[in-house]
């Protein structure tokens, strides 16, 4: 897993390609196995953490079904305990759960009676679309601001970096509701209820992208300006390369590395952080499913969501590694 500042892997250019192939295959296998372990560990931690939440699960289920908040008699709780297997020892419940995981069975939701895979699956795609688009949009915004404003005279530079710091400090709900009121109600460009349509996703995407763009921009700007000071840039300029070309072709490539690393983390964080945007715009999403599931102590659903988010994170980081290798010539085994 690459991180900012980690020593660059020495090029393996002098080894025979067959051995390199085997080594790469082994590396991939190790990565896959460790990814699976990470997922199981995350789900296990979640499973047990939920049992720490005080209160009785059967009680919570009955209350959720009836909209009440009270205790129930043991006679009323017994059928619930039987139905969900709460009367079995904890270890047995845990092992059943983990065993099920390896069969692709994430369990059944306590409150919706449906398989957890269905509960999550229905609302996962809109969340992924939203967060994926938000990440892309954040990148576009961040890069645009940097390309236009880095090292271009005191005022413009300051404006750019202030813009980034400003947007990074915006509370998500605030951005969401201001965008809603201004662009969907006052000036009716976008719908208030976006649902999952493309046009209706613009405002939710912007709500998440604008603060993230500020954050990514700040991280990248420093690198970008440092790179623009490097001797090889001066060389390129003296060879007649135009300013825009210099920025795009050389400086950008070197300076985006830290932000690429952060993107892996950002993807995982965005998914659950998107709950606010989903709430404001009435979009389905697993953030809301997660909040409901924790509130109603729907243990399998919570664990299932953790698995899915962890899975997304793992895949995102795999992509980050690939992107890193593509962008940073030092890491590419030539």
């Amino acid at each position, binding site marked *: 897993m690459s991180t*900012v500042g980690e020593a660059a892997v020495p090029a393996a250019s002098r080894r025979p390609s067959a051995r390199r192939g085997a080594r790469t295959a082994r590396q991939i296998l190790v990565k896959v196995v460790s990814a699976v372990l990470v997922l199981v560990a995350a789900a296990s931690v979640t499973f047990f953490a939920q049992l720490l*939440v005080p209160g009785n699960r059967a009680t919570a289920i009955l209350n959720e079904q009836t909209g009440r908040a009270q205790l129930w008699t043991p006679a009323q709780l017994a059928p619930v305990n039987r139905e969900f297997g709460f009367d079995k020892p904890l270890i047995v419940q845990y092992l059943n759960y983990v065993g099920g995981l390896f069969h692709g069975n994430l369990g059944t939701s306590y409150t919706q009676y449906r398989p957890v895979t269905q509960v999550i699956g229905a609302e996962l795609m809109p969340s992924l679309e939203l967060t994926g688009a938000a990440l892309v949009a954040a990148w576009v915004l961040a890069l645009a601001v940097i390309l236009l404003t880095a090292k271009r005279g005191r005022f413009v530079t300051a404006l750019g970096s202030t813009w980034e710091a400003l947007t990074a400090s915006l509370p998500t709900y605030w951005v969401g509701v201001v965008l809603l009121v201004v662009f969907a109600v006052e000036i009716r460009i976008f719908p208030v209820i976006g649902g999952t349509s493309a046009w209706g996703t613009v405002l939710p995407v912007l709500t998440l992208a604008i603060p993230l763009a500020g954050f990514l921009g700040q991280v990248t700007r420093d690198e970008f300006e440092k790179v623009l000071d490097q001797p090889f840039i001066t060389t390129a300029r003296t060879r007649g390369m135009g300013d825009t070309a210099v920025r795009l072709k050389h400086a950008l490539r070197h300076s985006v590395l830290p932000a690429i690393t952060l993107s892996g983390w950002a993807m995982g964080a965005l998914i659950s952080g998107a709950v*606010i945007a989903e709430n404001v715009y009435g979009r389905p999403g697993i953030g809301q499913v997660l909040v409901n599931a924790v509130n109603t102590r729907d243990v399998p659903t919570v664990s299932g969501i953790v698995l899915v988010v*962890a899975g997304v994170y793992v895949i995102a980081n795999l992509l980050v590694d690939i992107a890193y290798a593509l962008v940073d010539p030092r890491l590419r085994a030539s």
Partner: protein
Amino acid sequence: MSSISFPRAGALARLGNVRIRVRPGTAVPLLIVLLVTVAAVAPGVLTHRSPTAIDIEHTLLPPSLSHPFGTDDSGRDLYTRVIYGARESLGIGLGATGLAMSIALLLGFIAGLAGGLIDVLINRILEVAFAFPVLLLALLLIAIYGPSLTTEIIAVGIGSAPGYARMVRGQVLNVRKAAYVEAAAALGHSRWAVIRRHLFPNAMRPLVAMITLGVGQSIVWASGLAFLGLGVAPPSPEWGALLDSGREYITTQWWLEVMPGLVIVLVALSITSLGRTLQHRLEGAAR
């Protein structure tokens, strides 16, 4: 790095070996941070009213001279509530970042210095921590311990720790291989001295801006938790709580939502700004 010289306007201060000249561009964020600190430590200096003084005759008044931010739906002066909320919000920001940094320093340095199996183990733990949605962590903690200032600090702190731990570890690995560290070790300085005098300052210096960014982000994050109903109990004037209770009024009494939001933005912005300035100064001095 060039600087404008204001021989009369600038003030000189010493910070260890680093001289800091305060320029107007730094003055504004500094002033804001100072104001917030005063608000957190001695709110009575900035306002004579009480944050819980209800007045049902004067609810929902727009901003005016006597109520700079207007009044809320109980007739309380919003400006006063914002001032008194500084302590809790700043507390969350500093507390969460402090907690995160403590964990991060511990894990990052151990992993970076020890290497080998310990490094691998800590890396795996960080992986699992990363894979965990921070939102869930907050939800679970609050479900177990109930919503309170402490729970919020712990939730945001633990949630941000893995990210910092990664960065610290990366920096430590970087600096470990640097020439001056090897030189110091070759000169026979003790391990501790090397860590204290060379490793630590040089590893942490590039992270100063990230830390202050983190303080700002923690304040913003806490407001998100309040939105989900996981904030501190009323009648606390914590900024996130103000933001949450002002939501319904955005199209009618907009100041209830806009003012607390602006304050959060300005404060986070100023802290971040100062952090970047500080980092640039430190890096300039270190060259």
